[in-house]
Each structure stands twice: as structure tokens, then as C-alpha cells.
């Protein structure tokens, strides 16, 4: 196995173009497990830790945030919790404190595990993944088009993940994850809801309940039609129940060692109802304050 040490992004892209089999490594928390267990033996590793711009985040001219693929979860929690609350909540549940010090959203995207904790908030927020190749330059892939299958994503062999770009939260966001112990646990299933009051809609993201992380589109459409954005009333139980049903129905879970398909569907419905309730209550409070 060769080890490539680019100092710059241009070098990294050149290396990936020349050696498409090279596996990028940043925090290592996804890639190393597979290497240690011989699940894969890539011909080369592409060490991105020296590429400084990957570890930065900044505001775009249009107000969105661009977060480099190398920003670790710990910094998402400490620096971005106010602007990306859903993602920060998800980051708090990733692995362990040690993993959060090194692991990155970029790594989560690269691995494209359906259980990755970053995916539901990225989907719910409408994030766009920026990927780049030396040959064709930058390509912006909406999160929902990024996940293609279990551990498969939309990257071409010569492309690297550069950043994700996402709107700053315009409303409440909640991430919720079921695991069978209280720390260091892979999601049995997870869910994120993000309210976008300015657009009078809500975004959703489902994790660990289908071959790919996905949005509950019918549930989003239902909310867009039913939510009274101007009102400050609590949500009707029937609306919450229906929303939960639609989220559960959007999943395509399987039985595995972590849980059954039936439980995952059920739990998603519960998470959907609860997170929407919390989000809507926050929204109402904010609306009341404004009024």
C-alpha cells in the first residue's frame, strides 16, 4: 500500500486522478476500521490531513455555510451548533469523544454507510456536497442524490469530497437516534427534521433504515400542505400521527443484529412525531416572541 501525502488540494486532486483506487483518509475513523480488519486493501491511501482548506469553514456570499470535508465533529459541535443545530446534535452522538476529535462529516460522506449520523441532518437541511476532480472541476451534488447504495456514493473514481454547503438553520432542527445503549452506539435508526419557515416547509432525513439515507418526501409534502406557519397553535395529534406514519412508510428497513425492520419503522414514527413536536414548539415560541 502506498501512501500519498499531498500538501495542497491541487496535489490531492492530481493524485486521485492518477490513482483512482487511492482511498482518501482524514480522521481515519471510518477507513481505518476496514483496513485493520482487512475488509479492504486499497492500493494507496491519500492523506488529506495536510490540505489546510479542508479543515476550514466559512460563510458563502449567499449566506450559506461552506464546511470543509476535514472539519472534525468536535468543531461542528463547538463552533457550528448555533448555525447547524441538527448536525451538531448528530455529531454529539457520533462514536465517542475521541472519534469526534478526529472523525469528519467528509469521512461519513465518503463511507456512505446508511447508519452514518451526519446524513439525516444534511438531507433535512438541503445540503449540497461539493466534489471535485482535476479533470472536470467542481460538481455540486445535492445530498439526496449523493447516496446511491449501501456504502456507495455519487463520487466518480477521480473525485474527492471538498466540502458540504448548507443553508444556516432558518428554524428549529432536531436530530434523534435510537441505539441500545447510552453512548458509543451505531444507530438502529435515526431521524432529523428541520423547519424552514421562510420556505414554509420542513426537511427530513432518515438514517439506518434503508440501503441509503433518505428524505421522507411524502411526509415533507404532507407538512408543507398542512402546517399553519402563521399560527401559533400546537400541532394536532392527528397531524403528528400521520406525519409519523409517513416517515415510517418512507423507510425500507431490514432485520439485522441491531434491530428488526418492524421496530425501525415503528421507532421512526415515534422519533418523527417527537422531533416535529419539539421543533414546532420552538417555532411557536419564536413566532410568539416576534409577534
Amino acid at each position, binding site marked *: 500500500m502506498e501512501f500519498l501525502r499531498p500538501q495542497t488540494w491541487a496535489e490531492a486532486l492530481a493524485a486521485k486522478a492518477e490513482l483512482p483506487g487511492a482511498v482518501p483518509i482524514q480522521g481515519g475513523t471510518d477507513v481505518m476500521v476496514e483496513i485493520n*480488519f482487512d475488509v479492504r486493501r486499497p492500493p494507496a491511501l491519500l492523506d488529506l490531513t495536510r490540505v489546510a482548506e479542508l479543515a476550514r469553514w466559512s460563510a458563502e456570499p449567499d449566506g450559506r455555510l461552506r464546511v470543509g470535508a476535514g472539519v472534525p465533529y468536535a468543531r461542528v459541535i463547538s463552533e457550528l451548533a448555533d448555525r447547524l443545530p441538527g448536525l451538531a*446534535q448528530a455529531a*454529539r*452522538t457520533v462514536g465517542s469523544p475521541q472519534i469526534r476529535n478526529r472523525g469528519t462529516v467528509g469521512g461519513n460522506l465518503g463511507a456512505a454507510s446508511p447508519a452514518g449520523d451526519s446524513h439525516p441532518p444534511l438531507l433535512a437541511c438541503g445540503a449540497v456536497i461539493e466534489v471535485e476532480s482535476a479533470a472536470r472541476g467542481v460538481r455540486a451534488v445535492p445530498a439526496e442524490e449523493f447516496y446511491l447504495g449501501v456504502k456507495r456514493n455519487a463520487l466518480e473514481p477521480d473525485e474527492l469530497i471538498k466540502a458540504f454547503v448548507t443553508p444556516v438553520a432558518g428554524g428549529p432542527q*432536531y*436530530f*434523534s*437516534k*435510537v*441505539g*441500545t*445503549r*447510552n*453512548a*458509543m*452506539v*451505531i444507530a*438502529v435508526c435515526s431521524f432529523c427534521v428541520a423547519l424552514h419557515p421562510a420556505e414554509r416547509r420542513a426537511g427530513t432525513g432518515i438514517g439506518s433504515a434503508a440501503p441509503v439515507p433518505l428524505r421522507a418526501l411524502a411526509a415533507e409534502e404532507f407538512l408543507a400542505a398542512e402546517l399553519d406557519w402563521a399560527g401559533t397553535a400546537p400541532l394536532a395529534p392527528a397531524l403528528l400521527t400521520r406525519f409519523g406514519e409517513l416517515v415510517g412508510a418512507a423507510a425500507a428497513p431490514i432485520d439485522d*443484529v*441491531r*434491530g*428488526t425492520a*418492524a*421496530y425501525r419503522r*415503528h*421507532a421512526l414514527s*415515534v*422519533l418523527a412525531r*417527537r422531533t416535529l*413536536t*419539539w421543533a414546532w414548539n420552538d417555532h411557536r415560541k419564536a413566532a410568539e416572541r416576534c409577534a
Partner: protein
Amino acid sequence: MTGIDTRAAEGARSAQGIGQSAPRPDGVLKVTGEFAYSSDLWLDDMVWGATLRSPHPSALIRSIDVGPALAMPGVLAVLTHEDVPGDPFYGLERRHQPVLAVDRVRYQGEPVALVAADHPERARRAAAAIVVDYEVTEAVTDARRAAFDPACPRVHEEGNVLRHQPVRTGSVFEAPVVVSGEYEVGMQDQAFLGPESGLAVPAEDGGVDLYIATQWLHVDRDQIAPCLGLPAEKVRLTLAGVGGAFGAREDLSMQVHACMLALRTGRPVKIVYGREESFFGHVHRHPARMRYEHGATRDGRLVYVKAEILLDGGAYCSSSPAVVGNAASLGVGPYEVGNVAVDAYGVYTNNPPCGAMRGFGAVQACFAYESQMDLLAEACGLSPVEIRRRNAVSQGSHLITGQLIDAPAPLADMLTELESFPLPATTGTGSDLRDLPGGVSQTTRGEGVRRGVGYGVGIKNICFSEGFDDYSTARVRVEATPDGPHALVHTAAAEVGQGLVTVQAQIARTELAELGVEEVTLVPADTSVGSAGSSSASRQSYMTGGAVKTACEAVRERFRELAAGHPGLSPAELVERFGPLEETREYRHRPTRPMDPLTGQGDSHTQLALCVHRAVVDVDVELGLVKVVELAAVQDVGRVLNLLALEGQIHGGSAQGLGLALMEEVQVVDGRVRNPSFTDYLIPTILDMPPMRMSILENADPAAPYGLRGAGEPPTLSSTPAIAAAVRAATGRPLPRVPIRPQDIALP
């Protein structure tokens, strides 16, 4: 001298006898990273061993081609069953487990061939290159079918029932109140953090020196030597640092393999299992299926208990017969009942072999009988505490085996004390996420959360039972040093983290105080001294503690004779002039008897220990997630030797019981383990372990050294049913199975 020097860092020597929370003599080594675990051993010329294991739970071996492995660079040896120098089989109770599979494999992960190579990865790759032609055969994976279906294939010639132990007393099997249930306990793993490892060094005399993390050096040696075709004295074992044990190191793992490779290559051979291999490399706790029927009077006094306890022993015997004995003899718990029909079965299947784990056969039955007691409480309109108190054993009661409980057993008082502990405050909405079910994963902010309180009681036999010749050996030597008389304590007892080295030194200081001994050195445990027996069955404080005490007394006796003959001399002068004074003693507990094969009657146990738990849980009833809010325990230990270490044992036992109640299960489907990793075999984290409230009683057992009672296992028994009961109380679900899975609560 390479022992552990137990001079206290703070110099508070006088405060380090028994009863004091003396610090661990190996503590500084452990907090500085200098303590050498078996996986840390190293010799410059050593090579690495690796094991090829069966991918099938049941198959015939048509052929093994080691050629491709031998041809690989760096490979020094590839061995199969044909290369076993001596007896091809080993085993704790039955010598029928192949060192390397002979003509068939009986479980997934059974060792088939070995490789020695100059690098661990080369060894692993070479092992993978060995070609084995298997003919897959039907795997027996259902314990009930294995036991009772005559058409079921036999895993071994002897038949699939490895032991059936009935217990019969009385004849009245009718009662006004009857409750019954079927219960299940999943396969738990000991999951010690330091995987199996050791270093075998070929010796010039043709023998081998093995540095190994184990629970019982001598029983290892007595199994290894015949397999190597060597006399016992040519197989010398030294205890390496043990990274946890909990029963999983009572059986052999890589011991014979490393020795075979060392003898074949003439090089020191190190084998270290990875985490996944560790799941296949040791026995687990027996999964159990149990049927119980309890009959009682309307005021809740037990009339009879009928029980069938089916324990899946997996592919080989290990210690299953003793596990069955415990399940049978302790099968109704610490309750007085005159009419009993218990049948405990140990069964062979093609599932992973099961054997010793903390609690050893008493854990599974405890979950069932305690679940039954709660059903009975409900049927009689009594509280869970009251039903237990009304039926509690006490000194003078008899076990269902007829054995008299001749030491204090104040169970009713323990329950009363437990019940009197204040309950923790309610967790309300707006609580910190960390205090709610689901924790920081933010599954609830109070929605769906219900509180439950449950009680559990357990009784565990301490030391080996059923007529086993159970003893420990200690050699104590007092010699003069410039700093005064110094004691050396040498035993073969395995320090596995329980603090045995601390207690041995405390005992020596106490017993040798009149010789002026303050400094005690513990000689490394090895086979150059007699057997100490196993660090299991909560027995080492009793047995090796007893041996050290007895040897110290013998030294002291000689010292007193010398002192009487030389009244003018100080202790230091006496030791200087007449020393060193050395005595070796074997210590035996009082004899036990076998259980009658038809009635189970007999004084089969040495000592009995009780622990009671109260669990308080918050359950998210919609999602099925559980937060254990508090565990409270009352345990009678007879005599506290070291409070700090003792509390640690109660924490540890309680946590492992919590794990069994809520998350820990080796999932086996069609004989295959589906979760051999810490990603999917979950053990409690620090966020899962609740604060504990404890009361430790000291009602001495007159038969035991200092009156002590073994303490490591009992809390493992009672915490599981207490937590299960608390979850039932919160949810109203019957929950007849542990671990309780979220879907069991959310989607019954």
C-alpha cells in the same frame, strides 16, 4: 527477585492489614502502563502464531492442504491435528475437545490448523491460505430438540444430554395459587478487554515455558502437558498480566497451540487474539430456556416449585456439568419450599461452546425464579419485597438439596434494609438528556418515560462444589533484611483484577505482625508452587486467603517456639539468627458431597452467599429504551477484607448483570455468531452504569477464614432480575427474556 513489592507508597504500613482499604500493590504499574499483560510480552527472537478456524458449525473434514501456507515467505510451521505430539484432546471435565479438529468440526470457529511466521500478519495470511475441504453436515442448533428429540443427530457419541440433574423433595404439587412461565436467557460473553494471548518459550530440557493470562495455572498445565506428550514438570507456566477474566480464561484457548508451535520451531511463539477471534476463542455463558411453575398458599407461602432448566452447552463439554449442578441445586433460589421437582439439563449442540462466566449456572435460574416470585407477589396481592421476605431462607433453613444452611443468611433483614433505602428523585421533562432513556441521542425529552422499581435476590455457592477436592497452596517465607523481617508470599493464584494480591499481602501483614513484618513481596504466580485452584467461584479470598493465612500461622508457630527459647532476642534478631523461616501449606475447605443423581440430595456446597438488588429504571415505553437510574444492593460478605476492592466487585458484578438485562447477547443464528465485535456486542458504558447505593453486612461464616464470604459473583445474579422487574413495572410487559430488546417493549 521480581515480585510485587507491596510497601505502600504513602508509607501507612500499619493501616494495611485485613479490613483496611490497602492500595493495590500492582496499582502503580497499572496506572503507569508498566504492568505487563500477556499481550505485552516480547522476546527478540520470537515468532507469531495464528489459528485457522472453521467457518462451519458442523462439517466433516475431507482433507487439509497446508502446502500453500507453507510456501509463503516468513512461514516457519503449519500444523494440523496430525502434529499434536500427545493426546489430541483436552478438556476441563471431559477430555474430548480436539486441540485441532481431527475429522470434523462441531462449531463455527473451532481451531483447525496453526501457523507460525515471522510477522503476525504473515501468520494470519498463511492461515487463510490453508485449504480445507469440508463436507457441511446438519448443524444441531436447537437445544430443546438436541435434548428431547430422539431423531436429532448426535453431536457426540455419548448423546446430546451431557448432564441431567434432577432435584426431588416432597410430594405435594398442588396449591391454591399457581403461577407459571417460560423464560429465556441469551448467550452472554465475558468480553474481557485484554484478548487471549501468551508467549511459549521452548526450553533446553525439551520442555516449554508458557507465560499466560489464565485463571488457573495448574489446570492449564495438566491439560497442556498430555497434549504435548510431556511430563507435567516440563511444562512450566507463569502468570502474565490478566486483562480481565470473568470465567472466560478457565478453559484453554491458545495455550497448547503456542506450545506446539514453539516446540516445532524451536522459537518463542506469541499468539494474540484479535477481538473478533476472541469471541470465537473462549466459552460463553450458557443460553437457557426455562419452564417454571410455582405453587403457593393464598398468603404467599411457597408450596412447591417445578422447573425445567435447559442449558445450551454448545459443541464441547467445558465446565457444563458443574454449571448444570449449580442451576439445579440453586434452581429455586434462597427460598424455603418443601416440594420440589427441578430438572436441569446441559445439552450439546453445534452452537459455540459455553462454560464458565461469573455466576456460573446460578445466573440463568435466578432470572427465572425471581421473575416467578414477582408473578406470585402479584397473584397473592403482596409487594415484591414481602413475597420474598415471607419465603426467605435463614440460618437453619435447608436448600432443596437437603443441605442445612449453617451460617448466617439474613435474607429477610437484607430485604428490609434494601426497601428502606430512599428512592431517587423522579426524572422530569426538562431533565438533562444524559439522565433520560436514550441519553444524548435525544430520543425523548420526557415523552413516554415511565419509572419502574424492581427487586432481585440471588444465592450463589462459593468455592467448588459436589465433592471436588478444592484446595489452595501457599508458601510463606520470612527472611531478614536490613529493614527488618520481610515476608515473601508465593502462590499460583491468578490475580485477574479482583485484588487478590492486595488481600494476600494484607493477610500476611496481619498474621506476621508479631514477627515485625511490614513489607510483603508477592512472588509471581507460577507452577513452581502447588495449585491455588481457579480464580473463579468467588473462591480465592477464601481459599488462597486461607492458604496464606495457614502458612503464615505455621511460620508464626515456628517463630513463637524460637522466641520462647530465646527470650532476650527481638523479632528481627530472631529472624536474622534463625531465618529464613519458610512454610508451605495446603488449605482445603470443608468437604462437599456429590448430588444424588436421581434426587439431587446432598451437601454439595461449601458456602452460600446472598445479594439483593433494587433497580430503579426509567423506560421510554414507546421506543423501548431503558435508563437505569439507580442500583441499590445489600450483600453479606461475612467479613470485609478490603472495602474499596469489595465495593469494586459489587459495582462490577452489578454492571455485568445490567448488561445481561439490557444489551449483551452473542447472537447465534444457525450456529453462526452474527455480532463478534464491540460494535455489535454491546457492554455497558460509563453512561449506562448508574450510581450505586450499597450496604455491606458482616455476618461471619464460622467455617471460613476470618469469617469471610466470597463476594465477586452474587451481585451478578441479582441485578439482572431486579432490572427486568423494574422494566416490567414501568411497562406492564411480561418480558420473559433477557436481554430485553427495545422491540420487546415497544412491539410486544
